[in-house]
């Protein structure tokens, strides 16, 4: 029912507007120069080649990178650029076929199972699809309890464990009391992703790798997730490696950006430089293809007849 009257039905008192500062995303370390910090993960000539029958695919092609402690790094690339393969190698789930990965300046050694487990105490991940990150046969409590176990708290009394889990859920705006004994598919996508962050809160790794954590989340809830991740980073000094195809997102949150195309890093540096003054042709094209608000979106440069898959 439309009315043309604009007489206010309710009075609005400016003072009663709740000023909830938690709504805005934290900014803590915006302009810090991270290159002065100690090295966390770095790589020289890291390569991964896949061989299936007669077909050879070079997923990651001799990449070099330097990630510093406490930094938030974004790796930006479209699908097929090799960013997922690179992330698996960084996590230690996949071995590079060539090149070296260094952890804290020294060559990373994860040759045995025990060494791998030691490494994983310091690096954790959040994946893109919240639905497939959970084992549907287990209740969500088991996910959090697992984290407590990993940190050596297996023999803690039950009340203490519940306290820890409630605190972790509270950090991500979830109520543990409401979620306990539920199965993952009873939660919404946003809630599941936030629970993954709660898991990280419990584990407090020194490196977090987030692979497209918000691409399956609504734009409205996206900010909440980002807020939580940044807060974690500020509180614990965690290094965050953010993998995304969303350039605007990468521009906003990162301290440094790496642009990836067909397995290679074509450009890297501070976001202001890479996004606003791109040098590599791929980067230029990528930035111009993104719809913007203040700058015009030039549709005339499209090559419509190119259809090869």
């Amino acid at each position, binding site marked *: 029912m439309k009315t043309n009257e604009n007489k206010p039905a309710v009075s609005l008192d400016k003072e009663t507007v709740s000023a909830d500062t938690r709504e805005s995303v934290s900014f803590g370390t915006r302009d810090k120069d991270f290159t002065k910090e100690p090295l966390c993960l770095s790589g020289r000539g890291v390569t991964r080649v896949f061989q299936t029958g007669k077909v050879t695919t070079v997923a990651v092609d001799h990449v070099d990178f330097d990630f510093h402690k406490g930094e938030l790094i974004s790796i930006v690339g479209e699908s097929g650029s090799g960013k997922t393969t690179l992330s698996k190698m960084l*996590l230690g*789930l996949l071995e590079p076929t060539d090149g070296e990965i260094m952890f804290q300046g020294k060559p990373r050694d994860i040759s045995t199972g025990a060494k791998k*487990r030691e490494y*994983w*105490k310091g*690096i*954790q*991940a959040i*994946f*893109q*699809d919240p639905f*497939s*990150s*959970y*084992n*549907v*046969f*287990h209740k969500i409590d088991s996910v959090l309890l*697992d*984290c407590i176990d*990993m940190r050596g708290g297996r023999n803690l009394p039950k009340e203490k464990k519940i306290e820890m889990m409630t605190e972790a859920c509270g950090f991500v705006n979830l109520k543990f009391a409401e979620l306990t004994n539920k*199965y993952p*598919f009873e939660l919404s996508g946003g809630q599941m992703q936030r629970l993954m962050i709660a898991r990280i809160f419990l584990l407090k790794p020194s490196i977090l790798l987030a692979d497209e954590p918000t691409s399956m989340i609504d734009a409205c809830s996206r900010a909440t997730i980002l807020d939580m991740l940044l807060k974690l980073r500020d509180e614990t000094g965690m290094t965050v490696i953010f993998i995304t195809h969303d350039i605007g997102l990468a521009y906003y949150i990162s301290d440094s950006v790496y642009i990836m195309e067909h397995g290679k890093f074509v450009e890297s540096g501070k976001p202001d430089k890479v996004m606003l003054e791109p040098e590599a042709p791929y980067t230029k094209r990528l930035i111009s293809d993104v719809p913007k608000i203040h700058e015009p979106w030039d549709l005339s440069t499209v090559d419509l007849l190119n259809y090869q898959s």
Partner: protein
Amino acid sequence: MKNMLRNVFHSPRFVVGFTIFMVMLLTVLIYPYFITRDPLLGIGKGFLEPGTYVSVYDTNNAGTYRVELPEANENRLESTIPVKDRQTMLDFLKAKGVDVSALDTSNEKFHELIEVWKENYDEADAKKNKYEGFSTQAKRNELRRLNNRLSEDTSAAMSVTKGEGDSATTTAVAGSDYVKVDEVANSINLPLGTDNFGRDTLTELVKATGILDDILMFIANIFTVIPGFVLLILIYSALGAESRGIVTCAVIIGITSWVWTARSVRSQVISLRNRDHVNLSKLSGHSLFRIVTTDILPYIASYVVMAFILQVSSGILAEAQLSMLGLGPNPNELPTLGLMMNWAKLFGAYTSSNAWWAYFPVILMIALISFSLNLMNTGLDQVFNPTLRD
């Protein structure tokens, strides 16, 4: 655990399938304790219809009780001259041209029928005139025997003589003398008759099903596949008749057919290996064993069980096929479902003697095993896939 059980029995389909299966299983397990007879023992001569068979000798030995059944006379008449025979009489009379419109095969008109018959039947006459439908020798013999029976006095005095010579004792048998079946030393209940060898079909059936179930339980990987069938036949015939035991048969069926299941389960596992929750498990430092049992197995459980069921059914069928071809396990050791089918076929159960009980229960049994297992698997949907639970 309790929750798990509740989920398992939640689906009505599962409960039905489970009930059928358990009933069969229990019968198979408990029956041998009651009937300890060797199933391969021939007790009848040729095919016997289902029914209860009571020894006449022992009936006469058992103590008698006096029972007055109101319908006793009728039953007696009925059994001496059953409806079938009365119809024959009517047909003969009609063929001879006698007016039979007032007659029928009922008990009330029985005496009338006999009267009319006695007036009109003469053996020589029947032979000479060759009435329609009764022209063959066999038919006329049948009529003659019928006539003789009619002449017997159904309530004639009967007595039984036991022993010979001087020590013979004679006891009169009255129409009202009955024996209690339980006291008769030898009686046998054959709900499914006997097969061609005279063996009790039911006992055989139980034994055959039971053994097959045993094999399924004990040998883990009995998977059968029809394409391996040719290989199977070749191996089997090469082995020779003596070594064809039931275990050998099962083992060979198993060896030639695990490939299909193994390959499909493997491809499922490979696709699961790269799922996020498995990766997260690895990152959480879980051991390989734990990842396999908690992150991979539950996801393929439904698939594996389904494969198992399909292969059990085809396993049974393959064995049956082999046996029917004569390549099955040694027939002198044990009966199997396939062997029973084989004998039925060989000895003309379905063609000449219409002894349906020799093969029909086998078919039903095979069908029921597959059906109940399938039903259980469908009903377990909610257990295998928790997202479907309400």
